[in-house]
């Protein structure tokens, strides 16, 4: 093993990427773990916002619909980097003000929680639109049948609308998840030690830019490939009961 690395001239890189100090591999993996944690939380939080947002847009009153329209329009119009700066500083500032008013003094806000809240709000705007489209794609007759048999609204949502819309929503949600994993990199700007920031620090300290950015790229790629496999399974499950499209268009 060592011999192969030696002959390929990669021994130095392997040493730099080693998991134990003085190698920086451990830092990169910690950064990745932080990134994934935030991506996961933000995606989940965004999904929750999206579910309420889509229901509000479809079934809500005028005020709710208008408020949601402002939310999705503004979030989708402003560049994410700007949003992150605004939401992060405004958010932490508001929390600190509130806490000071209640006499608690400044609170230390965990980077993970801040990241989840900031990215979650961004994700929520997109998820609202993905889910709204998916709910609208559910054949009206299936919802009507549930109503005709006396299903109350919340049960109808849980038992019919959500499962039936899943097959329409998964492709869009898979995209959102991948965007969430990559958007974590934007949190570097507020000093959160996710994968990209860790990579930059490692690269700057060692001057081995190529090695570290290649390594980080490989990590992002692995996450994407793995996510792709997981979502393929989810989509297959969500499409249960629907004949395969292959052949239908021949």
């Amino acid at each position: 093993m060592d011999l192969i690395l030696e002959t390929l001239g990669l021994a130095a890189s392997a040493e730099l990427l080693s998991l134990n100090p003085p190698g920086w591999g451990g830092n990169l993996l910690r950064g990745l773990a932080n990134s994934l944690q935030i991506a996961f939380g933000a995606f989940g939080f965004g999904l929750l916002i999206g579910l309420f947002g889509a229901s509000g847009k479809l079934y809500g009153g005028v005020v709710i619909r208008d408020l949601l329209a402002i939310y999705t329009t503004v979030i989708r119009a402003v560049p994410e980097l700007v949003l992150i700066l605004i939401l992060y500083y405004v958010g932490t500032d508001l929390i600190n003000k509130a806490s000071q008013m209640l006499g608690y003094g400044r609170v230390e806000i965990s980077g993970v929680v801040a990241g989840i809240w900031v990215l979650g709000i961004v994700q929520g705007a997109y998820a609202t639109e993905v889910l709204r489209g998916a709910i609208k794609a559910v054949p009206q007759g299936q919802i009507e049948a549930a109503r005709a048999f006396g299903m109350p609204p919340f049960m109808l949502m849980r038992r019919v609308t959500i499962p039936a819309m899943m097959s329409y929503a998964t492709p869009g949600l898979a995209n959102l998840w991948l965007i969430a994993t990559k958007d974590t990199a934007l949190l570097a700007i507020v000093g959160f030690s996710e994968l990209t920031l860790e990579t930059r620090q490692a690269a700057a300290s060692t001057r081995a830019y190529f090695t570290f950015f290649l390594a980080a790229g490989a990590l992002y790629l692995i996450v994407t490939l793995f996510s792709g496999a997981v979502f393929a399974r989810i989509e297959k499950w969500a499409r249960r009961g629907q004949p395969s499209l292959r052949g239908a268009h021949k």
Partner: protein
Amino acid sequence: MAMSEPAASDTQSDGDDAEAIRVEDLHKSFGSLEVLKGVSLTAHKGDVVAIIGGSGSGKSTFLRCINFLETPSSGRIVVNGEEIQMRADGSPVNRRQIERVRTRLGMVFQAFNLWTHRTLLENVIEVPVHVLKVPKDRAIKRAKELLERVGLGDRGDTFPSFLSGGQQQRAAIARALAVDPSVMLFDEPTSALDPELVGEVLTVIRDLAAEGRTMLLVTHEMKFAREVATHVVYLFEGRIEEQGPPAELFGNPKSARLKQFLKTVG
């Protein structure tokens, strides 16, 4: 304005003439378009009321107002002796009452409307288990009997999209039977089917009629209506133009419009 109490004499031979459903002076407008202009109709237990009429005459709207899939504009609806509480504008006073009454009305749609992400068995147990809170094992046992009865005993694990229209409609009938409805509402149950599949669905409905199920049946199958109905109602532009026992209505129609209609549908 239409008469009420049409079907009383038809069921007295059963010795069971309790009222299953009564609709009085039902009006329904969509915006400025008045689709139902005062329709009254009573069905007693065991009655099979066939509702016929041209396209757009308000047949579907009438059925859909009965279970409040459409909100009536005014009128009275009494199911099994329980009157649905309406405000002056026809909107329901109590959502829970509507939901409870709906579980007593098994509806069968023209387009089947099975839940495509659930197997046939899951479709049939869905309402008993989740809405009526029947224990799951009992619901499954009953669902299997019902699927057997409509000739789908071996298809419980199949998803609807993999079946023919006739099979899907029979499964939809099993789903409606699973709530043990007081009244079944059929809205053109065979109109979306290929001609060769109509017969198998009519056979199932004929069986239900024979066992004394109460039903309101909107249909374009005149021969079938004549054969299974205890009472026939002819709707024209939101009013009952003529009604009576099938032999009379089909054999000796009085209204010129009905005569014309029967000529066009063959």
